């Protein structure tokens, strides 16, 4: 599903250049649930943003579902993001003046789907994350866990190939974190490929594979025995 080879990325700030990713090689198969770990500043988010086409690598190759991702103009990149990827952010990133339902419908709007169909589909995904009753609430009327579940519903709405989650539980307490992980595990059980950036061990062990990053390189990449979040809830 995902193959990257020799990926490099540096940030330049004034005269300083910071080499963040120093040659990353790895691949993810369809249906995997992978966590990316590493200390703060090790380049986890940078990697995930490149995988999400929100940022560009300086060097190296990236293939997503057989499509080479290289020198895309912003228009194509937007199409690919819409079609291939779903994002879950630590800070939820919901549009604050839109209801939960309309937030979930956004990716469908950009697919050109008509309003009625959009609303039905968005409602189905809200039901899936258990928030059908909150459909018409604004984000500021929802708890952190609820917001993240709306975000997950939104990420799923366009039925993407891969879900990318950057510290999805970073802003949540343990109990809520496990609920969210339970949801993510369920989605993975249905066959969706998911990548999660985290620096919490317990969260990482709820995935099926842990990739460890240090100073811009992968130092460890191993499958783990998945702990079901449901057993903690």
């Amino acid at each position: 599903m995902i193959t990257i080879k020799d990926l490099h990325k540096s940030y330049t700030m004034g005269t300083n250049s910071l080499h963040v990713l120093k040659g990353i090689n790895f691949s993810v198969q369809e249906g995997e649930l992978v966590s990316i770990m590493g200390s703060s500043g090790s380049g986890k988010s940078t990697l995930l943003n490149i995988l999400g086409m929100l940022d560009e690598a300086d060097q190296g190759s990236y293939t997503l579902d057989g499509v080479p991702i290289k020198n895309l103009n912003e228009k194509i990149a937007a199409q690919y993001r819409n079609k291939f990827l779903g994002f879950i952010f630590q800070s939820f990133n919901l549009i604050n003046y839109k209801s939960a339902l309309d937030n979930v419908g956004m990716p469908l709007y950009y697919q050109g789907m008509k309003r009625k169909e959009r609303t039905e589909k968005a409602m189905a995904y809200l039901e899936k994350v258990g928030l059908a009753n909150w459909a018409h609430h604004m984000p500021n009327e929802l708890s952190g866990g609820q917001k993240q579940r709306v975000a997950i519903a939104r990420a799923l709405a366009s039925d993407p190939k891969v879900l990318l989650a950057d510290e999805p539980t970073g802003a949540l307490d343990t109990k809520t974190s496990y609920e969210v992980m339970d949801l993510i595990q369920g989605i993975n059980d249905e066959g969706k490929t998911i990548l999660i950036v985290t620096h919490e061990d317990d969260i990482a062990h709820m995935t099926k594979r842990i990739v460890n990053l240090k100073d811009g390189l992968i130092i460890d990449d191993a499958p783990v025995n998945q702990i079901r979040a449901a057993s903690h809830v």
Partner: protein
Amino acid sequence: MFSLERWQEILETISKNKLRTFLTGLSVASGIFILVILLGFGQGMQNGISAEFQRDAANRISVYSGVTSMGYKGLNPGRFIEMTNDDYNYLITKYEDDIEFKSSVYRIWSGTLNYGNESGSYRVEGVYPDYQFLENENLVAGRYINYDDQRLKSKIMVIGNKVQQDLFAGKSAVGEYVQINGINFKVVGVYSDPGGEREETRVFVPLSTSQRVFGGADKVRNLGFTLKPQENFEDALAQSLQFSAEIEEFLKERHLVAPEDTSAINVNNTLESAKRFYDLIGMIKTFFWVVGICTIIAGVVGVSNIMLIIVKERTKEIGIRKALGAQPLSIIGMVLHESIFVTAIAGFTGLILSMALLEVLGPNMQMDYIKNPSVNFNVAITTVFILVFAGALAGFVPAWRAARIKPITALREE
């Protein structure tokens, strides 16, 4: 641009962000509002001044006499100069070829009119038949004074509309006898005047009659002339200025008035004052335009500032939308669509409000020199379009920048 989905999205965004919509709209609406009101008043002043000049013939030259303000040839200042029939006769003979209408006027101070039980005090003047044209009067009933009346010194009079209303309570005055200071005069005509009521409270009798009956001897109070029409305004003005200067010189010499004495013989040239007024109005209107255009520019700057702020404020949202698959063009479209829609609605609101205000206030305006302020609809609507266009242009730059910003940069924005 015109897809239903886009419209729904924009309307929703607008309705959920009322404050920023209101602020954008306000600066546009007030810009248009101020411009239209200013233009309206510019037009109102022009109408008002024009009406003021319609009271009398547009090219009238009037001569008044007064008290000398300086000594001359051994005579003391403070002499009251009175013009005579001879002055008048000399002038109309000398300038026979140039003059179109002419009349001298003898004024009866405090004329009291009596008809039955009704009475009132009016300005009563002895005039020649041409005076009708000098005053720009229209007959609504009967006839004006004629040369037979002059010759026969008939006791007849022509009265203004208002006088008829006052004394005759709606009845026709023609043929009735009315007393002026106790002497019976027969009403032969009723006139109206574009100058309105103020000009219609006057009473005219033949000049010869007034001098005989009211003890005027051969004295006249003032003279009025118009000159024959010329090819163009410049010629007319030049001729009329020369004529004014010549008669002034003649009258001063004849009555032993110092050439530089302006109070004893006063020649008032309507054409000259009209030109001055119209020049002034031209300047005022230009000024209003300049102010109005500055207001519009301020409006445009306001709109572009607000657009900049809106885009800045929405950077994160734009990042989110991009992450969800929004293409650059759709971001530009979203920002522009909203700004054009809001400016257009606000612009037309300002236009309609200001036109409505002019419509309501205009006809009821009772101010000197301002009459029926109004604005050319085409001019107003063009300004709205210019403003909407400028607003779109102003919104385009920030929209374009927003569309180009990398999604990750936009998302990092707080």
